[in-house]
């Protein structure tokens, strides 16, 4: 059994987080989404992995090169669609195989259910089916896949995970995989629908927080680094090598902290928080339900809640993110969303900046302490 992991997609709707990396490389619970997908496959004994890279391919290739196990990589030259991506991998496929999106989370139990069934797909109920391919099922077999319909006939959606045989590749004529599957079905192939257990996708940037929350539940505890005797732990906490936790810092799991961070004294890291590597959090700052990527620094007396903070952001003292709910228009669709803030990479903020339910682009520089709401485009300078 082989697995083809599709990691070429850009994830436009996840901007600003996908400016410098493809969706599959967004770190969630301190590891790229694709790493969690590989875990599920390897746990099922599927070790022959083919990764298709495309958009920002260097970041995927460099990551795969650093893995402790061998992974075959192929490059999709232009991002024409999922079937086209699969075609890019065709030269490496010589056995029954799974197609797995590298940018959605999938658990090992679901893979176990689908891996031994020839011609099957994993499906799942979803509260907003119109964002996905909606699947029509009759007697356990797929009869139709409708891509992102205005009005969904059912709430069952495709996870994008298929179990296929090498013969499928020879008759694949379209650029999108669901179309290719429907062609095959119309030619008489029986495609079994199997219900996935844990599958989760992030469509919009704030969805990353929910995904982070789910994946943190799976983290193994570890206490590396230098931890002061007065640090208080509860729940599952993972602290990387070389990290210093100052006196009277409190950590309430599930929390994961990377390598070489400096946190505290007197900081509170509350549940559902991921903190990347080389992050500096100055005294008396509280972080809760948030995702801080690598090389972030947060000044003292700050309060971050429900925030995604991109790589290399530098937030001065007394920064706050405030949870609220409002409407966002993304790629022509209006979405209602409740969260604190999503900051792209390298955002810098002056003391006393307040982020209230906003999406701030990459490299935005906020030069005075203001209240930021709604959407700030990449590279904006706010005086």
């Amino acid at each position: 059994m082989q697995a083809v992991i599709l990691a070429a997609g850009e994830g436009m709707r996840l901007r600003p987080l996908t400016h410098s990396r493809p969706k599959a490389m967004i770190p969630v619970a301190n590891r790229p989404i694709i790493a969690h997908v590989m875990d599920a496959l390897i746990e099922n004994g599927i070790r022959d992995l083919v990764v298709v890279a495309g958009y920002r391919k260097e970041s995927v290739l460099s990551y795969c090169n650093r893995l402790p196990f061998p992974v075959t990589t192929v490059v999709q030259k232009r991002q024409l669609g999922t079937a086209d991506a699969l075609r890019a991998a065709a030269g490496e496929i010589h056995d029954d195989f799974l197609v797995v999106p590298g940018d959605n989370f999938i658990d090992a139990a679901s893979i176990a259910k689908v891996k031994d069934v020839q011609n099957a797909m994993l499906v799942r109920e979803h509260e907003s089916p119109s964002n996905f391919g909606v699947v029509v099922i009759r007697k356990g077999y797929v009869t139709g896949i409708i891509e992102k319909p205005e009005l969904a006939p059912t709430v069952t959606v495709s996870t994008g995970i298929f179990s296929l045989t090498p013969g499928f590749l020879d008759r694949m004529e379209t650029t999108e995989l669901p179309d290719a599957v429907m062609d095959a079905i119309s030619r008489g192939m029986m495609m079994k629908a199997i219900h996935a257990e844990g599958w989760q996708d992030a469509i919009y940037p704030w969805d990353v927080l929910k995904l982070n929350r789910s994946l943190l539940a799976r983290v193994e505890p570890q206490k590396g680094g230098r931890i002061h005797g007065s640090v208080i732990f509860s729940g599952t906490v993972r602290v990387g090598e070389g990290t210093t936790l100052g006196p009277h810092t409190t950590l309430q799991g599930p929390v994961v902290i990377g390598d070489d961070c400096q946190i505290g004294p007197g900081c509170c890291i509350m549940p559902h928080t991921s903190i990347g590597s080389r992050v500096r959090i100055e005294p008396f700052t509280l972080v809760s339900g948030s995702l801080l990527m690598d090389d972030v620094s947060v000044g003292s007396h700050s309060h971050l809640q429900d925030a995604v903070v991109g790589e290399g952001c530098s937030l001065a003292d007394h920064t706050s993110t405030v949870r609220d709910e409002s409407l966002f228009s993304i790629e022509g669709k209006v979405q209602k969303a409740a969260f604190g803030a999503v900051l792209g990479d390298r955002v810098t903020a002056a003391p006393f900046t307040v982020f209230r339910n906003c999406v701030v682009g990459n490299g935005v520089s906020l030069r005075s302490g203001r209240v930021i709401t709604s959407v700030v485009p990449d590279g904006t300078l706010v005086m």
Partner: protein
Amino acid sequence: MCGIVGYVGRRTAAPLLVEGLRKLEYRGYDSYGVATLHRSVSVLKKSGRIPPDAGLGKGMKGKIGIGHTRWATHGEPSDRNAHPHTDCTGKIAVVHNGIIENYVGLREELEERGHRFRSDTDTEVIAHLVEEAFRPGKLQEAVEQALTRLEGSYAILVIAQDEPGIVAARKSSPLVLGIGDGETLAASDMTPLLEYTERVIFLEDGDVAMLREGEITICCNGTSVQRPVEQVTWCLDDVKKGGFPHFMLKEIHEQPQVFYETVRSVDVREMAIQVRSSPWLTLIGCGTSYHAGLVAKYLLEEHAGIPVRVEMGSEFKYYAPPVRGLVVGITQSGETADTLTALQKARSYNCPTAAVTNVVGSSVTRLADHVLYTRAGPEIGVAATKSFTAQLAVFLQLASRLSDGALDDAIGTAHLAIGDALRTELDDAVGLCTGAKDIFYVGRGPFYPVALEGALKMKEISYIHAEGYPAGELKHGPFALLTPETPVVAIALPGPTYAAMISNVKEMKARQAPVIGIGATGDTEIAEIVDVFLPLPDGPEPVPLLTSTVILQRLAYHTADALSRDIDRPRNLAKSVTVE
């Protein structure tokens, strides 16, 4: 400069030797050959690159063998000059990396005694010298006797009929032995060994070793010696292309990680104490390492107030400069012959020595008093990229240490800016370069060596003539060469040299030279006067040194790629220059 490999064990040697040679091709690739021993010695050798088919050498029997991949120094690349070389009887075969300086005299002497030479190489004299001293069962003694006649540098492997092993010897050329399970190997570097063993022995100068199945005995000056067995931690995957079309691009993209790892792991404390107590500092390097030294000069003089001189290894060793204080050799491979000799010379003046290198256990680490390691990992692309960044990481750390941490913050976040520089759009700039016959690179201050390095990358891999100049020097001559067909790459960042750079660029534009400007993001002044503007990612000084370097590496890479050059193996060049 060549690569050699040898095998004694239970497997058929020839295919294994060919695979080993492929891994050493970066050391030279104009001809190749193997010799194996099965009752008698048989030799296969050819000029040209090793063909890709896997069956090569399959017909050759024997579980003992030696192989060679050549980069011609004495005698043109041809079948007959390819190694291994044999003696008159065809019973003894030799492969050699290095240069025998007195071979002309030896050859005349041997010819007088009736030896017939079949090649123009210096190596063949070794085969005939061994032949004269050879008695059955006494190959090692014969080699030892032959070596007493040689002057120059060598790493050699010798096999002979009825001798169940290989004799290996080294002097000033690299040779590593590997001890496997019932098999032993030898090679110019570790890469061919890693597939079979992680246990290696680095031979010292003057060592002569006998390799048999699973057993190695070493003699030095006629007495038996023990050399430590070291464990190698590299994994073989480190040296694969990993999905990138070229090693060079892979290595360019490893730079954020390499920079960070080097910054984190390098301990400059002791070196800083040495430097402080030194009246001045001498840095020695060749090629890209020399450019790293030039950048370091600016950094250390400006931030630490220490007088620094930078010398090319090949120049330093041929005159008698007054030297005092610490002498630092910079060499990625640790095997660069010119840098090694220069360090030896510094030692002879009783100067303390130090080395900045990427290869643990390389020759320079045994020569220098102090060693600072870069953490670049194996660099395969002939054009050095990540090793340069890693060398700068070492010198930035040193400069920061000597200036009470003045650069620490900038160094701590530099890897992010390097990552951003990997994404700068270059298509228009590449378009200007691909059609050019000559390109000039100009910068001022520390950006002058950056310009030199950018020009070196361009000429190495794209074969376009490129020169780096301090921007102010352009007027003192090279200006005469500017035409509408000669692009100029100008690095102009805000700071004391900015105004002067802008007026330089205007002067170039007045001669209608197309200008590619590299400057700070949002700098509209320069963006307006140049033809193509490449904005650098934001970052405090000295981060622009690193980001502009990365952009110039990428400009050279993409230009060479657009011209379909053999990027990982440019013509006439080899990775580490282990000869003068």
